[in-house]
């Protein structure tokens, strides 16, 4: 098994709900807590497994905002695991999930240097490295109904931009979607072979933008006055 996520960049609305759900579940999960520093202070910061960035591709008027959630890619050739001197970082043989044994980590940050995706963050309160577990404490939980045995981020996504499944099975929903939509991994040139895949934004017709209608004398006086008045 090779478990991972598919993230649809076409439908992600950038609401950060996946990050919040992730934090909510994992704060009390196997490698929680996810400490916050000054959560209500001047410089709020803290540990997150999932972060959403926002990009703009192409230029006006063909530009498009792309919301970009990123968590651990659970790479097949995970350098974060090979560089770890203590053996705290490991990749599970049975499902490919990359995890950190909190009892072995010495907090040297070396694995975070080896990760190109910024998936690993040091928790200052415990002094250990933390990262996405793919909700390993949830996806195998026999107490949960079958449909809820998925990572928190996938369950919560209101736009259904996230899918979870087994990439080793060519007929799984994730494998089929990646095939049909032309899914891609991030930074493939570094040869980490990330498991998580991203679906590209669909091509959409360009919305024609008319040039500004010319205003009369009244409009130009208004604009001139606006220029004079400093707010």
């Amino acid at each position, binding site marked *: 098994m090779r478990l991972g996520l598919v993230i649809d960049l076409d439908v992600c609305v950038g609401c*950060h709900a996946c990050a919040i759900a992730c934090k909510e579940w994992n704060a009390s999960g196997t490698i929680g807590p996810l400490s916050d520093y000054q959560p209500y202070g001047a*410089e*709020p*910061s803290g540990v*997150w497994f999932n*972060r*959403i*960035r*926002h*990009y*703009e*591709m*192409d*230029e006006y008027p*063909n530009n498009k*905002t*792309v919301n*970009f959630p*990123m968590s651990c890619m659970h790479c097949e050739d995970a*350098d974060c*695991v*090979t*560089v*770890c*001197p*203590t*053996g*705290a970082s490991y990749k599970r043989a049975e499902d490919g999930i990359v995890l950190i044994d909190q*009892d*072995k*980590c*010495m*907090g*040297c*940050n*070396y694995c*975070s*240097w*080896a*990760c*190109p*995706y*910024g998936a690993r*963050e*040091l928790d*200052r309160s*415990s*002094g*250990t490295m933390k990262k996405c577990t793919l909700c390993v404490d949830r996806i195998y939980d026999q107490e949960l109904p079958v449909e809820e045995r998925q990572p928190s981020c996938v369950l919560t996504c209101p736009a259904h931009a996230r899918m979870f499944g087994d990439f080793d099975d060519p007929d799984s929903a994730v494998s089929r979607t990646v095939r049909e939509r032309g899914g*891609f*991994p*991030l*930074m*493939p*040139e*570094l*040869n980490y072979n990330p498991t998580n895949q*991203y679906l*590209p*934004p669909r091509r959409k017709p360009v919305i024609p933008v008319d040039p500004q209608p010319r205003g009369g004398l009244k409009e130009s006086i208004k604009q001139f006055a606006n220029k004079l008045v400093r707010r």
Partner: protein
Amino acid sequence: MHPAFSVIFFTVASGAGFGLISLLFIADTFKLGGGFSREQLVIGGLVAMALIVFGLLSSTFHLANPKNAWRAFSRFRTSWLSREGVFAVVFMPLALIYLVCIWFDAPLWLRETFGFLTAMLAWITVFSTGMIYACLKTIRQWNTPLVPANYLALGYASGSLLLLLGAVYAGLDTTPYIAMSALIVSIAAVLKAIYYFWIRSPGLTPTINTATGLTRAKVKLLDTGHTHGTFLTQEFGFQIARQKAGLLKAVVFVLGFALPGLMLVWVFNQHGGQTAAIVAAFAGIAGAAVERWLFFAEARHVVNLYHGAQRC
């Protein structure tokens, strides 16, 4: 990269220590300049080991959870960080046996064998230190064979200047020590110059396009998605102004290579003697420290692409 002072102190101090003890072995074998006495060799060896031990101890200060530091010896087969630790620990008893051999006038073959093994382990350990950085594909300024070469050259250069200081204090003929220092310092300077030249051009590196997979158009960051800094911005966000980096490179060459070179001439011409040798050693080590700081400060991790850098 954020330059952590504990790591800078560790790499500079232990590099100088490993360099010193390796060259001490050479000086002992060939009785350079008349040869150090038994006590002088042992003192030199202990100084080298003190530099290494203090360096190793300081390297644990950057650990967030040092109580697990002993586990760092466990992944010898895959991790260069683990290898460095193991080699440094294997080095210690060998170096001690070597010093004991010197102190108790052990048979020459025994003394030379352990001296050679000590020098070998010193070489391997410093190489492993360099490989900790050179094996990372995420930082192009580090992912080059010049990195372990620089670590070794600067370690030996610092060690050779310390050894020269010892030779001056011991009242030996300094000519062979000056020749050795001059050669090693010049090699270190040339290697460092090649390194600075090499990292100037980015070559084939990841860009914001390959990082996001949006390769058909220009991509720019709109929002990082965090209110204040994160672990990633603290660890990898550090950026040095190009002008400041250029100035510091000049400092590295003047302080680390030119000034010790000039002092070698002074020692050779019997100007100043001890003072010149002290200035040479301290300038060399200070230059190495500036070089090490710059080594971290100039490194740009690819995660910066997700925070808006167009290329790293």
